[in-house]
């Protein structure tokens, strides 16, 4: 069994994947956001369909505007100054277009792929390092610090999971969304969120160590 990575390897790995994703897609990724959208896939699918229709309609409008511009341009010339004002408003909407497209969340399928890939990546790492072992407990650390009883373990894991799921969605992100991507972009809301969830986890962990 290999030892865990030294700190610098972990830092380089996490930084490389975050920077790579941002450069490739011009978006931030977040695991809790992916969970949220995948778990509400029915509603999210409807949103996506509406969005596609909207994009189609916008393309249609743009084509109509262009066609009518061509049509009117072919007509006998009118005084030039009047012609300029109807053409002008088309420009800003065309310029605003990439912004709208960029701010759309990643498609639903790709976020489901993210979650599945995390599982596969973890499986490859644990098999390659020889750390993979099917077990019905969470390891000696959890047993000593949290609870030794199987029923207590199930109850606390479930409660912890609910807190994580609810809390990350209320805060609008988790350790990947706020922590890596948001803090990397020096987004104030992400820095506040990261400081708060990290500080709380530190306080609760100290309490757990105190109790034993």
């Amino acid at each position, binding site marked *: 069994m290999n030892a865990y990575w030294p700190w610098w390897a972990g*830092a380089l790995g996490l930084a490389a994947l975050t920077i790579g994703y941002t450069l490739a897609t011009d978006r931030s990724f977040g695991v809790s956001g992916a969970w949220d959208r995948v778990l509400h896939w029915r509603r999210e699918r409807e949103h996506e369909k509406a969005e596609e229709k909207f994009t189609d309609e916008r393309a249609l409008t743009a084509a109509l505007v262009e066609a009518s511009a061509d049509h009117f341009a072919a007509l006998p010339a009118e005084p030039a100054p009047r012609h300029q004002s109807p053409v002008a408003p088309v420009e800003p909407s065309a310029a605003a277009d990439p912004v709208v497209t960029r701010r759309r969340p990643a498609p639903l399928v790709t976020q489901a792929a993210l979650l599945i890939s995390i599982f596969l990546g973890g499986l490859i790492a644990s098999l390659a390092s020889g750390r993979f072992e099917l*077990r019905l407990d969470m390891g000696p650390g959890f047993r000593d610090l949290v609870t030794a009883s199987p029923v207590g373990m*199930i109850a606390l*894991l479930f409660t912890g999971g609910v807190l994580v799921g609810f809390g990350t969605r209320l805060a609008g992100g988790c350790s990947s969304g706020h922590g890596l991507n948001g803090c990397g972009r*020096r987004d104030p809301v992400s820095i506040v969120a990261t400081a708060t969830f990290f500080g709380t986890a530190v306080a609760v962990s100290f309490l757990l160590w105190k109790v034993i």
Partner: protein
Amino acid sequence: MRTRGGILLANIVTGLALGFTVTSIGFGDYIELSRMFTFQDLRMLLSFGGAVVIIVCVFALLKVRRTPGRIHAGVIPGAVLFGTGWAISGGCPAIPIIQVASGYLPALVTIVGIVVGVRLCRWVRGRYLHIDSGSCEL
């Protein structure tokens, strides 16, 4: 790369890399995590902090677009709940996935908890708690 296929590929590669890296650092190991949160072992803390420092520097150098979000009403209460849940269960939303991938079967219960929590949050917000939680992008 910004086509649908490009984004799909980026998510698959990022997911594989994230699962592999986070597992290799040891975030799925409860005792390592707890030793990080109580500052007994700074290795994982430096991994995370070091990553953030590198990302900040590279984004600043490449002039990556900044999208400052508002500090909305849900940030502090949400982050407190999340921090508590993380310290107890050892799972931020990606960790139980890699715990199961390492063979820790009870982490499936954490995943069930996350599923319930995520769905509960959207349901409660739509119905009773009209608290602003910013964009749902992250």
